């Protein structure tokens, strides 16, 4: 994985010292809250309902065992013994004391981590496919590019005060596991240039929040070495034309929507013509130097089939089910990527106790070449596990309460912190997620329902991705009561779509039943067990669901 060079180390150390000084000056009274707030936000420190919240960047969702152990140590020492993994492949601590945050940042810097650019109107943590560098279906590893973008965008003088925050996601596979079409910029690394060379398909202007929009393709191929020139061209156009007059219209998606993709494309092409071949051209050596950090580990030469695995599978059907759901095909024969579900029945999606973090760190070191990923679905991934090792790995996960075999099932819920923590929330998300996961806990029933993603946000900011849930739930405030609006037909992947509101909302004690009615309606109407929920919804439209929910 990427290792800091001397520059990075010095930079993060300086930044930590700078923030320590700022906190001291705030507490001593030399800075007012108005002066301090933008400074703390630049370092990932928010004020939520009960306490400060610290958002830690996990670049492209990749962690080593040592880093994970540090996160466990921080939760134990400075927080309440747990952390919350988010859809932005970040980690949030909900209870740090302001006075202690500089010490936390110092601990993070020891393991090459920080909280810079996790907030504010800058280019945020670049997210990627959680199976990057491992997935059988990928053209190439997208993480070197995520790192190149990170280096280019970090503290870029021109882009530190954008009209609004800016989110980039990059994937190396046509199958989109990183929701790239609902990011400001989505990049798909693919072959398609001369002699089958690599480059990027570029999507622009996606986003969620109060105006959800699916990104438009702005260019079908940008050669690899010209990526930064092309991105800079986009950012320049955005900086020039993006609306600074109205916060709600400031995202690039609004610019694309208002002006049309063709006009924006022309403007970007004009800038690109100006920039290409210049200093932003990425020399092959520089690219290779970064790629070397992400070189594939030394995979053993193994047969594709593992007898150990097959025997264990036959002996234990629950294990078999877990393998079927929570492993993903790997590039290297005899290996898989493992999803460690952070969605136990009745649990808080994305939360991990510090003891669990330690266990995942051990497992990564023992079984996955010391690599861990955080998925935007709020799970943890061990990307490179030998099939032969799965039974032993599983046994440890069972002991740790981390062996729920529900990846991609209805109980694999994305939920934002909602009104239990968030100062902007209208309604709670977590208790709804917990009740839904209890309602659908039965493993046979989940298997029967099949792929179905359910996503919950506590307000229209859509941190819980509800717009792209097959079933989306949005918390609203109706005359002081929590109320939940349901959308259907959203999708985060290469078939991205924004869900449609199915009808009037539901009170807290009705919403779980309403979801069950929707699921039962799907089960009745699907053409066969092979027609997943989203396909059935696209074929049937809203009508049968509305009828089941509200009568005709």
């Amino acid at each position, binding site marked *: 994985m990427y290792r800091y060079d001397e520059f990075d180390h010095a930079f993060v150390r300086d930044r930590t010292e700078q923030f320590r000084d700022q906190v001291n000056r705030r507490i001593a009274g030399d800075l007012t809250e108005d002066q301090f707030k933008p400074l703390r936000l630049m370092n990932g420190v928010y004020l939520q*309902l009960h306490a400060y919240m610290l958002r830690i960047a996990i670049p492209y969702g990749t962690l080593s065992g040592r880093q994970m152990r540090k996160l466990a140590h921080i939760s134990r020492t400075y927080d309440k013994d747990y952390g919350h993994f988010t859809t932005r492949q970040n980690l949030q601590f909900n209870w740090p004391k302001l006075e202690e945050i500089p010490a936390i940042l110092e601990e993070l810097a020891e393991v090459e981590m920080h909280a810079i650019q996790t907030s504010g109107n800058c280019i945020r943590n670049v997210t990627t496919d959680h199976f990057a560098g491992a997935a059988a279906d990928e053209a190439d590893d997208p993480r070197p590019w995520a790192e190149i973008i990170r280096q280019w965008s970090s503290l870029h003088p021109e882009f530190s005060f954008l009209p609004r925050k800016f989110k980039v996601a990059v994937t190396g596979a046509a199958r989109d596991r990183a929701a790239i079409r609902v990011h400001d910029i989505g990049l798909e690394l693919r072959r398609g240039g001369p002699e089958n060379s690599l480059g990027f398909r570029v999507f622009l202007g996606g986003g969620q929040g109060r105006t959800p929009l699916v990104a438009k393709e702005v260019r079908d191929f940008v050669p690899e070495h010209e990526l930064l020139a092309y991105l800079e061209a986009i950012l320049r156009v955005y900086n020039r034309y993006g609306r600074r007059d109205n916060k709600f219209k400031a995202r690039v998606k609004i610019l694309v929507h208002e002006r049309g993709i063709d006009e924006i494309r022309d403007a970007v092409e004009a800038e690109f013509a100006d920039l290409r071949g210049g200093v932003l051209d990425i020399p092959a050596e520089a690219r290779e130097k970064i790629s070397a950090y992400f070189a594939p580990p030394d995979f053993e030469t193994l047969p594709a089939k593992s007898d150990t695995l097959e025997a264990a599978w036959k002996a234990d059907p629950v294990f078999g089910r877990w393998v079927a759901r929570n492993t993903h095909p790997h590039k290297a024969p005899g290996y898989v990527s493992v999803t460690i579900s952070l969605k136990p029945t009745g649990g808080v999606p994305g939360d991990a106790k510090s003891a669990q973090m330690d266990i995942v760190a051990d497992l990564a070191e023992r079984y996955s070449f010391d690599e861990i990923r955080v998925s935007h679905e709020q799970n943890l991934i061990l990307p490179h596990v030998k099939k032969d090792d799965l039974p032993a790995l599983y046994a440890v996960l069972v002991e740790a309460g981390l062996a729920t075999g529900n990846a991609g099932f209805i109980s694999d819920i994305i939920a934002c912190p909602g009104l239990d923590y968030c100062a902007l929330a209208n309604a*709670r998300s977590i208790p709804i997620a917990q009740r839904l996961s209890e309602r659908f806990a039965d493993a046979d029933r989940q298997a029967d329902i099949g792929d179905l993603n359910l996503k919950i946000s506590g307000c229209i900011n859509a941190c819980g991705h509800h717009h792209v849930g097959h079933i989306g739930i949005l918390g609203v405030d109706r005359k002081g009561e929590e109320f939940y609006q349901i959308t259907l037909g959203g999708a985060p992947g290469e078939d991205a779509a924004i869900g449609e509101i199915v009808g009037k909302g539901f009170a807290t004690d009705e919403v779980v039943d309403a979801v069950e009615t929707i699921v039962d309606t799907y089960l009745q109407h699907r053409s066969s067990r092979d027609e997943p929920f989203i396909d059935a919804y696209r074929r049937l439209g809203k009508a049968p669901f509305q009828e089941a929910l509200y009568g005709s």
Partner: protein
Amino acid sequence: MANTSKTRVLTANRLGDGRVVYLGDNGWTSDLDLARLVLTEADAETAEAAGLIGVAEREIVEPYLIDVEAESDGVQPLRLRERIRAEGPTTGNSRVAPQPEAA
């Protein structure tokens, strides 16, 4: 119930650790039952002035008035948001973990 809709309390978050506090008769308290009840416009002005002093003295940030119901058995915020602020998250890992109490 006597005119409960007019009863208010000044709340804020403590600067040093962000924890929820209320303006009481003897400074800031994390116990809502000890909060000073704001019944009149004059009370509100006094409380808000105390809030500004709290900000200036770097004890607290973001003070604001909330509606409460004061009954014999204690003070209850009217809005759910404030009930959650008063009592902590309604579910999840912060409820079961030992709570390192702030000074």
